[in-house]
């Protein structure tokens, strides 16, 4: 107690020394007036404040988190039935379905962007979170998907519905092409090569003017639904949707259509990712992340496992790209810079690598928050950076803890092997 008072008094003395010339001597016109009470009061406040702050720091455990003690005291991984409760899922679904009727046109575009980032986050999560392969060039697959649709339409009148699987396949192919040379690389080296790959794709799109239109980009047509168009007048040889249903034209229809389509795709992807984690291939990814040598000693071919992670992750990125092109109506290489890769990676890291719910939450936060805080848009990147630093201090494993599936042991086998146990072999 006295030690703390003594410490507080010393801090107060320093404050007095500093404050006396600053606050005590006030320039008024050409004369200096002295106010001796002011620095004294302030120094007293500093002394008492220091005492109480140090007392608080010691007695309230919450502050310990600054010391990183929380990282070791909370269990890193919980084991249990994976995923949130059904009630939460229903609530989230109801909210997602009601959203277009609540928010306006602007809100819809934000929601669609958020869904695209969820898609990308989940795709990159396969590569980085599950397989543990640090990929800094994920935007390349996003670009491949977007340009598949744009160029496909430009040259061959490829429809959105064909571009969707084709973009996914092409992006998956690019993912495997990238995966092959980097099979032997780990960590930093892998990150650098993937970073280079992302830039190569962007530079090719930028400079191959004859084919891609270079920086001028390519315009994209909005998708149709079973031949029904979302334009005021038919432009693509179909019927406008409002005429078909006999309702008045509204430009909101486009956004609502794209939103629900994306929602369905994201929903399917979530189910897929949850199942993947409980499938041999998903387990092999995580095992590879943990220990590659052990994997190989267990008959798992690391090449196919890595390539499947790269390929599947890239496919999801490609689907995201096709949707992005449809949303924007126009693609050019400036949408696919390294910053995008870093942003998607930030989503995965913030969400907690490998956690599906965490990634979804992080994607929503990182797309919706910048829109809400438009006034502070200059500080967007800075705030993401600060958020990352704070996360590393408080929750180094992401917003949400990773969950591991729980296995109930079968009981039928009990009799068989129990007899085989050597008497006395119990280990405890």
């Amino acid at each position, binding site marked *: 107690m006295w030690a703390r008072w003594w410490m507080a008094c010393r801090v107060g003395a320093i404050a007095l020394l500093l404050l006396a010339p600053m606050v005590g001597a006030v320039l008024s016109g050409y004369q200096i007036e002295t106010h001796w009470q002011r620095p004294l009061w302030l120094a007293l406040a500093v002394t008492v404040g220091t005492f109480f702050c140090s007392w608080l720091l010691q007695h309230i455990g919450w502050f310990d988190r600054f010391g990183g003690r929380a990282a070791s005291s909370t269990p890193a991984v919980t084991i249990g039935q994976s995923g949130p409760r059904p009630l939460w899922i229903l609530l989230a679904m109801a909210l997602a379905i009601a959203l277009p009727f609540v928010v306006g046109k602007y809100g819809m575009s934000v929601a669609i962007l958020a869904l695209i980032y969820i898609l990308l986050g989940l795709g990159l999560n396969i590569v980085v979170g599950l397989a543990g392969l640090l990929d800094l060039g994920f935007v390349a697959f996003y670009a491949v998907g977007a340009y598949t649709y744009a160029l496909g339409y430009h040259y061959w009148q490829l429809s959105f519905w064909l571009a969707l699987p084709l973009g996914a396949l092409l992006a998956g192919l690019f993912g495997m092409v990238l995966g092959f040379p980097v099979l032997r690389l780990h960590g930093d080296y892998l990150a650098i090569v993937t970073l280079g790959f992302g830039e190569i794709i962007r530079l090719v799109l930028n400079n191959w003017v004859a084919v891609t239109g270079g920086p001028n980009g390519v315009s994209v047509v909005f998708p149709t639904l079973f031949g029904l168009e979302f334009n005021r007048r038919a432009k693509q040889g179909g019927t406008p949707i409002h005429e078909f249903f006999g309702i008045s034209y509204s430009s909101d229809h486009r956004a609502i259509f794209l939103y629900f389509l994306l929602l369905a795709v994201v929903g399917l992807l979530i189910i897929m990712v949850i199942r993947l984690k409980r499938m041999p291939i998903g387990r092999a990814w*995580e095992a590879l992340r943990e220990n590659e040598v052990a994997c190989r000693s267990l008959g798992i071919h690391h090449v196919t496992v890595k390539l499947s992670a790269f390929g599947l992750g890239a496919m999801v990125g490609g689907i995201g790209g096709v949707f992005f092109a449809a949303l924007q109506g126009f693609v050019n290489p400036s949408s696919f810079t390294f910053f995008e890769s870093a942003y998607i990676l930030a989503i995965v890291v913030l969400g907690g690598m490998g956690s599906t719910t965490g990634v979804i939450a992080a994607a929503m936060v990182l797309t919706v928050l910048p829109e809400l805080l438009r006034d502070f848009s200059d500080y967007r990147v800075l705030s993401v950076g600060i958020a990352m630093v704070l996360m590393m201090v408080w929750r180094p494993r992401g917003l949400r803890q990773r969950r591991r599936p729980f296995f109930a042991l079968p009981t039928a086998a009990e009799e068989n092997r129990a007899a085989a146990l050597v008497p006395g072999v119990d280990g405890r």
Partner: protein
Amino acid sequence: MTPLLTVRGLTIRFGGVTALNQVDFAVQPGSITALIGPNGAGKTTVFNCVTGFYRADGGTIRLHAGQQDEEGLNLLTLLGEPVRWRDCWQPQRLAERLYYQMFGGPHLVNRAGVARTFQNIRLFNELTVMENLLVAQHTQVDAALLSGLLRSRRFLAKEEAALQRATEWLRFFALHGEANRLAGELPYGHQRRLEMARALCTNPRLLCLDEPAAGLNPNETRLLSQLILTLRDQFQVTILLIEHDMGMVMEISDHLVVLDHGEVIARGTPEEIQQNPRVLAAYLGTGAG
């Protein structure tokens, strides 16, 4: 009786150092064979060659498991031998070598029936104990993407069988109470046993244990000896082990191979080895030098 594993003239060099020089030994099916020798004798190098992690510079490693011809399966071909000019006259051989160059590796050695544990435990620490064992059964379950995503009946049946098999091994190693704990948070002795259980989940004919008793207390070591004997007697698993605990080695092994400076200096039963003057010299040194 044909041996399960025959190693002939195994040689490997790291730069100028000949780590193994003309190592010959055989492992009889259903036996416990121990590789012993002073530190740096090349025991673990032999293991890494047998399990496919090192590519030997010379010699053959033949495994006589399953329906192979009399010669057995040369494990070295699985690792991808260098393609030679004279292979051009034998397209089939060339194709085989190219295939193994591309897709060969230790995983094929494991699938041929050789499983191993590691001197420094290599578990999947962030996975649960059960998941560790399920990963080991990757080649036995339905790993196809679509059948898993659609939860086909075949997929579910295979998963169930894998779970069953894993549970049996967990019970055998008295780890069933910890099936849903993270492998990384188990006590050291349990981690050692889990690694053995994981290797056994791949259904090996030959189990290679690299210092299984390292870091165990005398009680745990005694338990381990019993487990290894049970494995051989009841599960017909042949065991090749490296061990420094001489008490345990002499007690359980049927056959000993003594390595020193990358060469085999003695082979035989525990009694023979204990009398062998070269072995004593290698371990204790000789005044005559």
